[in-house]
């Protein structure tokens, strides 16, 4: 999985942030490319650019190997993301792809937990295959 971060700051400011702050949080600094979208053009197309504030909201897009968007999350600035949930979602989408869509991951699924196989036999029988407690 490759991570790309992107904001309206220039790549020069990205360097300063990396050098002066991020390296104090993460040894060696963050390893992924920090992209610059100065005019907000990419943010506009992705629906995360706030025209009034001139910045981009916390939009997060999971893109599969075919370049197709599988998941979108957009938060306003004061609330941070949940990285664990991001990783869980990526693993779930990867699992679904590996099984060529034969398996689906129910609510609360974690790697190693049972999946569901959608089909005629499962209709009306999800209550047998999956329990509500597994969602939490």
């Amino acid at each position, binding site marked *: 999985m490759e991570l*790309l*971060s992107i904001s309206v700051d220039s*790549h020069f400011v990205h360097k300063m942030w990396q050098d002066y702050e991020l390296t104090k949080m993460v040894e060696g600094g963050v390893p992924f490319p920090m992209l610059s979208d100065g005019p907000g053009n*990419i943010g506009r197309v*992705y629906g995360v650019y706030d025209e009034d504030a001139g910045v981009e909201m916390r939009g997060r*897009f999971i*893109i599969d190997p075919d370049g197709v*968007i599988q998941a979108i999350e957009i938060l306003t*600035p004061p609330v941070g993301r949940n990285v664990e949930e991001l990783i869980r979602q990526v693993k779930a989408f990867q699992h679904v792809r590996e099984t060529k869509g034969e398996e689906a991951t129910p609510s609360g699924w974690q790697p190693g937990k049972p999946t569901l196989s959608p089909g005629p036999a499962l209709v009306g029988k999800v209550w047998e295959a999956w329990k509500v407690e597994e969602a939490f």
Partner: protein
Amino acid sequence: MKELKIGCGKPTGAKLGESAGSGKPAEETPMGKEISMAAVKVGAKAPDFEAPAYQSGKFGQVKLSDYLGKWVVLCFYPGDFTFV
């Protein structure tokens, strides 16, 4: 990451567009014409773009379509030095 020559003329700015090589600057593709907002939804192709980037001591140019074949997480955020 393709290396980026550093000049003062255009310190920042991204390019949007679907095909590799067309490389039309963003200002020549007004919103709502070639790329519409409706294009961005789950199950649809992620609009391609190219943008200047900083990574591990180097400046470069990153193109989303160069990552085809890999899983990509694209994270927008309000700005460097913001708090959350």
